[in-house]
C-alpha cells in the first residue's frame, strides 16, 4: 500500500516537473499507438464495411477469421514481425527492426482486426431496409456506403477506442520489435516492465499511472467526438 502511495506521489512529481525523459516516453507512446490506430482505422473501417455490405462465398469463414484476429496475442505478432523484418529476413532490406516504425507496424497489425471486427458488426446491425431506402432515393453506391458509415458512427468510434486501448497497453510486441531502447523506442509499457525488473516498483507504478492518465485523456477526447460535442 505504501508503495502505491509512493508511486502516486512519484507520478505527480514526474508530471508536475515535466521530467524530460518521462515526457519523451509518454509522447512516443502516444505517437506510435496513435499512428497505429490511425492506420487500423483506415484499413479496418473500410475492410469491415466492405465485408459487411458485400455478399460473397465464404463470408462466414472470413468473419470468423476477423473475430479470431481480435484476440491476436501481441507477442505472437511481435515474433512474426521480428522474423520478417530482421536483417536476414524477407523484409530485412528495409532495416527497420528496433525502430519506432517497426512498432507502428506491429501495433497496426494488432489493432486492425479489432477495428475491423467492431466496424463489421456496427454496419451489420444497421437495418437492412436502410440500405434499400438510401439506394431508392437515388444515391450512388459510394454515397450509400458513406451514409451507412455515418449512421454507425457511435459503434465505429467505439472501435477506434478499442483499437487504441489495445495497442497503447500492449507490451509484448513493442519490446520485441522496438527493443526498449532508451530515448528512441522506449514507451510507457516497456519502460514499466524494465523498471519492474530493476526492482524500482515506485517508478513502475508511476509510469503505470501516467499510462492510465494518457489513455483516459485520449478516450475523453474520442468520447466527446463520439457524443457530438466540440472538443476544446
Amino acid at each position, binding site marked *: 500500500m505504501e508503495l502505491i502511495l509512493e508511486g502516486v506521489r512519484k507520478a505527480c512529481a514526474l508530471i508536475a516537473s515535466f521530467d524530460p525523459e518521462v515526457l519523451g516516453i509518454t509522447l512516443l507512446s502516444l*505517437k506510435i499507438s*496513435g*499512428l497505429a490506430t490511425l492506420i487500423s482505422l483506415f484499413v479496418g473501417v473500410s475492410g469491415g464495411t466492405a465485408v459487411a455490405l458485400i455478399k460473397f462465398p465464404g463470408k462466414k469463414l472470413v468473419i470468423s477469421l476477423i473475430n479470431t484476429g481480435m484476440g491476436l496475442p501481441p507477442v505472437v505478432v511481435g515474433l512474426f514481425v521480428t522474423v520478417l523484418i530482421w*536483417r*536476414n529476413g524477407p523484409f530485412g532490406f528495409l532495416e527497420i*527492426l528496433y525502430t519506432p516504425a517497426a512498432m507502428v507496424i506491429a501495433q497496426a497489425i494488432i489493432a486492425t482486426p479489432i477495428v475491423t471486427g467492431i466496424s463489421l458488426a456496427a454496419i451489420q446491425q444497421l437495418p437492412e431496409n436502410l440500405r434499400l431506402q438510401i439506394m431508392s432515393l437515388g444515391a450512388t453506391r459510394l454515397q450509400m456506403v458513406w451514409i451507412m458509415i455515418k449512421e454507425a*458512427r457511435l459503434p465505429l468510434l467505439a472501435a477506434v477506442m478499442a483499437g487504441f486501448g489495445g495497442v497503447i497497453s500492449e507490451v509484448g510486441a513493442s519490446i520485441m520489435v522496438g527493443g526498449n531502447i532508451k530515448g528512441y523506442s522506449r514507451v510507457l509499457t516497456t519502460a514499466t516492465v524494465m523498471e519492474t*525488473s530493476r526492482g524500482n*516498483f515506485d517508478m513502475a507504478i508511476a509510469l503505470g499511472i501516467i499510462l492510465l492518465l494518457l489513455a483516459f485523456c485520449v478516450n475523453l477526447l474520442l468520447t466527446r467526438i463520439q457524443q457530438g460535442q466540440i472538443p476544446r
Partner: protein
Amino acid sequence: MKRVKIIGLIVFAITAMLFFTNSNNGQAAPQQRNIILATTTSTQDSGLLDVLLPVFEKKTGYFVKTIAVGSGQAMAMGQKGEADVLLVHFPDAERKFIAEGFGINRRLIMHNDFIVVGPVHDPANIKSIKSAEGKKMAVESLIKIGSSGALFLSRGDNSGTHAQEKKLWKAAEINPDGQKWYQQTGLGMGHTLSIAGEKKAYTLADRGTYLAMKKNLGLDILVEGDAVLLNVYHVIEVNSGRWPKVNAAGAKAFADFMASGEAQALIKNFGINKFGSPLFFPDAGKKLEDLGT
C-alpha cells in the same frame, strides 16, 4: 455534428503524423551509425549501460541499440547475424561461438561474482557452511537446499546465470528438474530476484543485479567467495565475414571502447556511491587465469 466528427479525426490524424515525423527527424541516425548490442539482462538491470553508453555515443557518434536478453539468446542473435556486438557472461557457450566462427575478437571486460541468496531465516541452513570447505561451498549449499526441500528458483532462460546454475547442479549430482522444490521463472535476473524475495526462496544471482535491487528484496547473501562462482563478462564482435550486413566498424569501436581506460574507470566506480560497493570489476587486458579460476 457530422462535420465535427470528421474535423476531429483529421486533427487527430495530422497531429499523430506530425508527432511521428518529428521523432524521426530528431532521432533517427544514418543506418551505419547504428550498432545492435545484444547483452545479458544484468548489464541493463544494474544500470551500468546507462552510464557507459552516453559516453560512447557522444565520443563516436554511433547510436547503440541495446537488446537486453539472456546471454544464450544474445548469442543466438549473433549466430543469425542479427546483432553486431555481444556483451555476455556464458564462457562455455562463448568459446563454442568463437570456435564455430560466429564471432571474433573475444575480449575480457569485467567480472563480478555469483552469489547464492535466500531468505534471512535460511531454512536449509546453508550459511553455516564453512569457507574451510573451500571450493565445494557453492555445490555443498545446493545439496543442502535439495535435501531440505526448501524452494529454489531458477532463471530457466538459458542465460549465463542459468548456465552457471546448471553447472553447479551437475557438480552436486542432483537433477532438480521436476522436483517440487525447484521452480523455473523463465525471466530475467531482476524479476527472478523479486519473485524469490516474495516467495522466500533461494536463487543464484549475479552480485551486480542483487546489490542494485537489495533494498526491496529481504534476501541475504548466504554463500559467496567460492572460486567456482566467478562471473566473467566478455565482449565479442560478430563475424562480419559470415554476415556481411553486420556493422563491423561499429562493433569494433564499441568493443575497443569497453576495453579502453575510460570505460574501465567508469566500470570500476559504477555503483560505489549508490550501493556502497562496486558492482563490477574491470579486467580489460587481463587473462582469465589471472582472476583465479
